[in-house]
Structure formats: structure tokens, C-alpha cells
């Protein structure tokens, strides 16, 4: 050890030694500051939201969460229609978006068509979709998707299956259904790109093990690849869900903006994010503003809860399959 102790070094060596020691501690401080900034920002957001929503919290208490009226003239504010709208549209987005995303991911990773050019260009296109600003999705949804869905999906569904509560009401095009479909399209790039990476990371030995038991290509995908990748795919899904829950602009443009709780998918609705974006500029009166901020607080905790829940689940799954050797 003696050869490395400070006492036996020459002057220049001592200088280098000191310099590198200083650089080390400086680096440590810098990264620690960066790490704690994240925590500080998160706490600051929660605290600020809480502080500014105090008037609303003291007026409505916990019943704000299940209050169903949102009436500006009588200053009665309840968040349930928005929570409901957020749930319904996000769920619809997952229901439609997840199978398509998985299909894309399997196509791109499992050499369904082994043409490199095809898979590469589709992969890049999918990633490009994620870069399109959400207001563009909103415009497209408003002028193209909404009329299309009303004419070719909603009206036939209503005509033939109108007795099912889900498809009751007059299809107007600006409703939960359109918002859900648009959100599905918006989460496909994220979910499929991550799922593809997850599937690519599945070791080939897993595929070969299944093949050597006499499995077909599809059996290999269903029974070896997807189960192995399930925690990663689940993570991708949660990222998609988080995007759907928080998405503001595009949803605001196609959901119809009516605070309603109804079983019909063809009715206008509202989401937490949309109501904040729509009404904040015109909000007058302390209670109105603070109620909108409390909506923000609810959205904040909803996103936090989804992420925490997902992380817990992934952690549990991973613990079950830690591989030795």
C-alpha cells in the first residue's frame, strides 16, 4: 500500500493527486445537486398546487372528488366528471392502442418479414409519429378523424347496437369515443417503440429453447418471447397510459367539453387536463381558480399513483424471475 500513499509522491504527483481528488469531490457535489433538484421540483409543484387550491379544499373538502356538478354561475365545483372522462378515454386508448402497438412491435422485432429495409423504415416512421406535436393530432382529429368515425363507425354501431348503453345517444363525432381513438393513435408510437426494444432484448436462447421443443414461429412468440418480455411490455403500457392521462391539447379539441357522466361513448365529455386548459384563461373569482388548481392536484396525484403502482408491479414481476448463472 505504501507505494500509493501520499508521503512517497513527488511534488508534481502530489499536485495531480490533489487535482484529481478535488475534481472527484466537485463531480460528486454536482451530480448530487442535479439529483436533489428533481426531488425539490416535484415537492415544489405538489406544495404550490396544494397552497393555491386551499380555498377550494376548505369549501368543498374531500367531496370535491366525487362532486358531479361543475357550475360556474352558482360556484359549485366537483371533479368527478373530469376524473370519469380521463379514465374512460385513457382506458379506451389502451384497449385500442395496446393490441396494435404489440402487433407493430412483434412485426418489427420477430422477423415476421425478414426484409431489413421494410422493418427499418417502418420503425423509423413509428418513431417519427411520436414527434408530431399534439395540436396537429388535435387538428387532424377534429377535421378528419371525427367526421370519419361518426360516419363509418359510430352511426352503424348506433343503428345496429343502439340498445347497448355504450352505443346509445346521438353520434355527433366529438365525444369519448373519438377522444379515445385519437389517444390510441397518439400512444401507439411510444408503446410500440419501447415494446420493440423490449422484444429485441429477449435472449435468442429463449426462442431456440421453444423452437427445439417443436414450436411454430407463433408459438415461440406467444409462449416464449412475450412471457419473457411481459414486465417490459407492461412498463411500456404504463408509459402510454401516462401519456393518455396527461394529454391535453388533442383531447380538448375532440372530446366535446361537456362535464357529463354517462354510459354512452357517443356523448361529449371532459377530462381533467382539458378543463384546466379550456377554462383557466377565463376563470374569474378565487374559488373558481382554486378549484381548477385542485383539479390539477388531482391529476398530479393520479399520474403519480399510476407510476407508483406500475413500478411496484414490475418490481414484483422481476423478483419472480431473477435468473441465476
Amino acid at each position, binding site marked *: 500500500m505504501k507505494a500509493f500513499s501520499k508521503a512517497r509522491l513527488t511534488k508534481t504527483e502530489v499536485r495531480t493527486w490533489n487535482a484529481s481528488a478535488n475534481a472527484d469531490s466537485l463531480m460528486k457535489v454536482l451530480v448530487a445537486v442535479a439529483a436533489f433538484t428533481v426531488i425539490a421540483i416535484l415537492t415544489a409543484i405538489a406544495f404550490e398546487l396544494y397552497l393555491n387550491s386551499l380555498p377550494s379544499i376548505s369549501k368543498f373538502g374531500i367531496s370535491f372528488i366525487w362532486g358531479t356538478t361543475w357550475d360556474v354561475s352558482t360556484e359549485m365545483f366537483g371533479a368527478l366528471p373530469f376524473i370519469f372522462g380521463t379514465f374512460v378515454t385513457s382506458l379506451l386508448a389502451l384497449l385500442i392502442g395496446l393490441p396494435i402497438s404489440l402487433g407493430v412491435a412483434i412485426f418489427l422485432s420477430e*422477423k415476421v418479414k*425478414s426484409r431489413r429495409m421494410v422493418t427499418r423504415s417502418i420503425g423509423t416512421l413509428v418513431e417519427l409519429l411520436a414527434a408530431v406535436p399534439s395540436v396537429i393530432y388535435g387538428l387532424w382529429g377534429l377535421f378528419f378523424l371525427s367526421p370519419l368515425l361518426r360516419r363509418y363507425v359510430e352511426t352503424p354501431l348506433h343503428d345496429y347496437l343502439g340498445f347497448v348503453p355504450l352505443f346509445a345517444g346521438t353520434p355527433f363525432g366529438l365525444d369519448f369515443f373519438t377522444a379515445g381513438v385519437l389517444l390510441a393513435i397518439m400512444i401507439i408510437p411510444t408503446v410500440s417503440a419501447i415494446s420493440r426494444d423490449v422484444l429485441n432484448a429477449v*435472449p435468442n*436462447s*429463449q*426462442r*431456440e*429453447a*421453444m*423452437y*427445439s*421443443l*417443436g*414450436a*411454430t414461429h407463433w*408459438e415461440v412468440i406467444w*409462449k*416464449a418471447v412475450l*412471457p*419473457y418480455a*411481459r414486465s417490459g411490455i407492461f412498463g411500456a403500457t404504463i408509459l402510454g397510459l401516462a401519456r393518455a392521462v396527461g394529454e391535453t391539447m388533442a383531447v380538448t379539441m375532440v372530446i366535446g367539453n361537456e362535464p357529463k357522466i354517462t354510459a354512452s361513448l357517443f356523448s361529449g365529455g371532459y377530462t381533467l387536463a382539458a378543463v384546466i386548459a379550456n377554462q383557466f384563461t377565463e376563470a374569474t373569482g378565487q374559488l373558481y381558480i382554486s378549484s381548477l388548481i385542485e383539479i390539477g392536484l388531482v391529476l398530479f396525484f393520479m399520474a403519480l399513483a399510476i407510476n407508483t403502482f406500475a413500478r411496484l408491479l414490475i418490481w414484483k414481476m422481476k423478483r*419472480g*424471475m*431473477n*435468473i*441465476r*448463472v
Partner: protein
Amino acid sequence: MRRRKKKDGLVMGELAIQEQSDIDISLASQQGEVLSDSSASVSQRRRGHKIVTIDLKAQFGRVQVLRGINLEIKERSITAIMGPSGCGKTTFIRCLNRLHELTPGASVTGRVILDGEDIYSPKVNPVLVRRKIGMVFQKPNPFPTMSVYDNVAAGLKLNGVRDKAKLDEAVERSLKLAFLWDEVKDDLKKSGAALSGGQQQRLCIARALAVEPEVILMDEPCSALDPTATAKIEEAIFELKKDYTIVIVTHNMQQAARVADYTAFFYLGELIEYGNTEQIFENPKNELTERYITGKFG
């Protein structure tokens, strides 16, 4: 035949020159003549050969990995394939169950006759071939999301077996054959990935056995394991040859000498020598084989 042998520097195994008809088949195959399936199957059955490869060549893209392998593998015996790294021994056994061609850019030419049928004929479904030929890989690769039980039953479930009693019976039998039953019988619901490395490899052997294949290919099954685990696996392999034809790739000459009845020596994609294990180790006919066995290269 003799002239060819000299020219190629090849010595065909003792097996191949036991009978006159054998010479015919080797000769025909070496000259690349088309052999009808029926004649191959007749001579194959007479000699008890499970697998015959005829001018088997394999490549990855433009890289030639196997340069025309002619080898007869005897039924209910253990055949070891040994040779230095990169000699094509792993590729060779991956050609026997049509796994090689799944790698992008990989291709195979030549013929592999299993029970008288060319498994590379266009009429043959590779999925069905793989059900007859089990495989154990270099690194243990149990399915981590499945329990011990489900790992072993996976192949049977692929074949549509749903009967619980049948599955139970097959799982127990396979685990016993792989010498793993006593260690896991109380914990069949445990994840396959929670076992130790040696146990995982025996689980993979049990998984391959459960579908009752006729041939088992093993690709350096002990290379990732310690000597105790290796001994257990070798014990299992030795028992298995009563019912199965086993082809084992090994880097380890002692292992080949311990378990194998026949040994083939590969070098740079060619079969250099093939014969009884004793003969190969005690009295190798080819200089390369001798130098490899005595540790002068490899």
C-alpha cells in the same frame, strides 16, 4: 474410395467400412451423387444408424462453416463431437434439428437422413423434425416465467396434451431421468429460474425429454457448470443412452472420453476423423487428431 481418402486427408470412421454396402453409401455421398431415400433407409436400418449426414454444408452469409460433412450416427449410443473453437461442431448439431437456418443469413445444403428420411426435403415440416429431436443448450435456458412443472410440461402442452394425469406422469418421469426429481419434487411450483445453474441445466434436459424425442442434441451442456454439476449431468447422459441417441458437442476431451461411445473430430469445418472413442483417443489415425488429443493445439 482409398484414393479419395488420401486426397481429402480424411479417414472415414470404422463404422463406415465394416460392410461393403457402407462403402457404397459413403462413396456415393462423397461424390455428391443423388441417393434415393429408400436405398439410404435400407442400409441405414441394417447398420442401426439413426442419422446419416451426406455432404452437409452450412454457411453464415458468405462464411462457410461446414465444408461437407459425411457422418453416420448410431442408434442408442452417445456420439461426441469435439474440436477446437470455430471448427463448426455447434453449427453441425444445429443443422441436425434445422435450428441453424433460423439465424438470419444462415443456410444449409446437403442432406441429413433421419430414419431414412431427408429432413431437408421440401416436403418436410421443420417443426415436426424438432419434435423428434430434442436439444440442450450451452447455457441453461429455462423459461423464467414458468414453474419447474410448466417448464417440463411446455413441450407436451405445445403438442396439445391437456390431460393432467398424463402431464403429471411425464413431468415426474422426465425429472427422474434427468436426476432432478429428488431435488425439486416438493417444490414443483417454484420458478424454473430460481434453481441453481446445474439444476437449471438438468431441468432443460428434463424439458427436452418430456416430449419423448428419439434423438437428443447437447451443445456443450456442461460448459457453464462446476465439476459436481457436470458429474451429475454426465451420469444422466450415460443413463439416457439406453433409450435415446445422443449427440454431444464438447470442448472437453476428458468428457468425450468419459461418456461417448463414438467420437468425431472436427477441424475448420471438416470431419477429420470419426470412430470408436477408444480408438480415437488411443490410436488416432490422423495426425491432426493426434496433435489435438495430445494438446499440441486447440
